[in-house]
């Protein structure tokens, strides 16, 4: 054996005696590495919700549509809310749809760790895939619900402008906020199951504090700045402006909402990762 080979072998030996570095990769790298798992779990989330139901995914459309009908009867024909010339059904549907996304996402998301207890105690992978797959699963519902918007727009002769493209970044901002909330709620729910009872109540209340069944213009002006601290208010109002009114959103408030969403996401994720080691023992 010549010396070159020998050195090579020694090198190899030294290399092998070192242990692989502890995993210090960033959140996005982890996510990218587990993208297929996220996809699988998302598909599982969707399938499990609609399997063995006759109407299947159609429920994703029927739910907001039914709500639209109810609110139209109550607030357009009985309470007669002034919407600025926009037909009430489309006026409320455009906010109701992303709100349903928000509400179901939060309710499902806060339960996502507890309902996957069998996986958490049996197999290791980064736990953030659970909140993520729940939110992505509900995004599919949202996309399906959006399909109904086209015929509604045609039916009510809504004039569409380029501003409507802003819907996509708006959805992204909303998802950031939802994800942040889900990280927070799901990890706390693991320790205190009270969360699962609190979330539906709070989201119900939250809905009335957000311009969904009534326009922003009905909010008294002196309360407006406080009212708009709720990021969902600004996001919901923006959907309506860019899609129905064909005008830009209120940039200042939207900027605050985006900032709040990103902060929620970062803090939620931090807390989630901090509590993660205790998940398997606590659940």
């Amino acid at each position, binding site marked *: 054996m010549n010396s070159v080979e020998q050195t090579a072998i020694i090198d190899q030996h030294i290399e*092998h*005696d070192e*242990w*692989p570095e502890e995993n210090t990769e960033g959140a996005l790298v982890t996510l990218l590495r587990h993208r*297929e*798992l996220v*996809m*699988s*779990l998302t*598909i*599982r989330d969707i*399938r*499990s919700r609609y*399997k*063995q139901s006759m109407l299947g995914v159609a429920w994703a459309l029927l739910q907001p549509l039914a709500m639209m009908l109810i609110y139209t009867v109550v607030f357009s024909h009985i309470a007669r809310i002034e919407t600025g010339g926009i037909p009430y059904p489309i006026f409320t549907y455009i906010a109701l749809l992303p709100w349903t996304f928000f509400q179901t996402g939060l309710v499902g998301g806060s339960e996502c760790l507890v309902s996957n207890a*069998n*996986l*958490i*105690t*049996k*197999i*290791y*992978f980064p736990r953030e895939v659970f909140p993520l797959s729940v939110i992505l699963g509900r995004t599919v519902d949202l996309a399906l619900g959006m399909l109904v918007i086209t015929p509604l727009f045609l039916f009510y002769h809504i004039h569409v402008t380029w501003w409507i493209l802003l819907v996509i970044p708006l959805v992204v901002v909303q998802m950031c906020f939802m994800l942040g909330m889900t990280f927070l709620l799901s990890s706390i729910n693991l320790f*205190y*199951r*009270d969360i699962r009872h609190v979330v539906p109540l709070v989201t119900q209340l939250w809905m009335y504090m957000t311009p969904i069944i009534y326009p922003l213009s009905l909010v008294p002006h002196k309360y407006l700045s406080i009212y708009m601290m709720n990021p969902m208010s600004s996001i919901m109002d923006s959907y309506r402006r860019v899609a129905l009114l064909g005008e830009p959103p209120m940039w200042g408030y939207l900027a605050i909402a985006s900032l709040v969403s990103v902060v929620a996401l970062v803090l939620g994720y931090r807390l989630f990762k901090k509590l993660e*080691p205790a998940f*398997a*023992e606590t659940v």
Partner: protein
Amino acid sequence: MKAISVEHVSKKFILSKDRPKNLAEACRSIGKRKPREDFWALNDVSFEVNQGEALGIIGHNGAGKSTVLKLLTRIMQPTSGHIRTRGRVSALIEVGAGFHPDMTGRENVYLNGSILGMTKREIDGKFDEIVAFSELEKFIDTPVKRYSSGMYARLGFSVAAHVQPDILIVDEVLAVGDAAFQQKCLDHMTDLRRSGCTIVFVSHNTSAVTSLCDTGVVIALGEKQFFGPVLDAVDCYTKFVIKKRDVQRRAEDQSLLSAKVCSDGATIESISLRSADGSARTSVRSNDPLVIAVRVKFDEDAKSPVPVIHIRNNDGLLIYDTNSVMQRTDCGDFRAGDTALFEFAIDHLPLKAGTYPISAELAYGDFSMYYDSRRNAVEMLVVDSDTSYGLLELPVSLSSSIVARDREEQVAES
């Protein structure tokens, strides 16, 4: 090259009787000292596994085996100490964890595969192999909630076994499925090992452990009792089993003794197993020589007492029963105060792998009564050579020869 290194690992759980169960309680208990009790599931456990080796973890229920696995798979983190692993770890802690009952077998293969860390392309490539291994071709498009538990387990194992891990961690999963499938799983793990995969195997089935593993760790009460060659580990474990069972046995023995009329004229002090070189053993290889020694203390004079041994299998079936009369041996006479040793020497133990409880009795020369009777006093663990199936290990040699051959070929040859 080391594949797994566990250094001084301890794991503490908090047994909290009064842990606040809701926010209200949590608020009330702020500032108060909560009563809590620490439970050390593992205490300063260390071992190492080289790449391509198989390690068996043996211990009672609640000894801390599962905690070790959960630490190895990073499901939990140790309270102190270090665990390091090299390469992709695939764990079979519960078969079919992550299966969704409403989804079909096919969908669950993909779901479970990705949970275990396979990419879609990898699963595509191995799908047929996975299904073939599980023998569920016919039912692959049926929702798994319609599967029997055996089918469930088969599919789960098949997926996990095809992950191609660098380290495969297998918990007590072979308990499900029929004997043929269990054997198939063991064979598959042996194949994986040959291809360089490191295996950590947890089981109560000591014969499965010995046939698969080279080294063993015995864990009891959260502490490492032994780490070394698998046979010695099993030996160590068996001793623990006996210690633990002794208490239960004693009560059992009492009731059995009353059934048999014993005079208390002599006491069977011990039944021990020894190998050819005279060293005490509890485990033995098939076809190895073995001595079963019965030690008796006489409290009265005895004229040609008859020592009896029974070997049962794990199901309680009597597979061997002999005594000095049948062996045409007169053991002679003894006086009160004598201590005697009766040795039954077996040249080649013709038993397959398994656990065999051994009983001994000492009868009066005319079989009118017994001096003493000790039922299942010792357990013999047999490890076999993996050359046959069945109940017995027969000394078979195989040869082949041609006894007739077609004429034309003969011509062609010459």
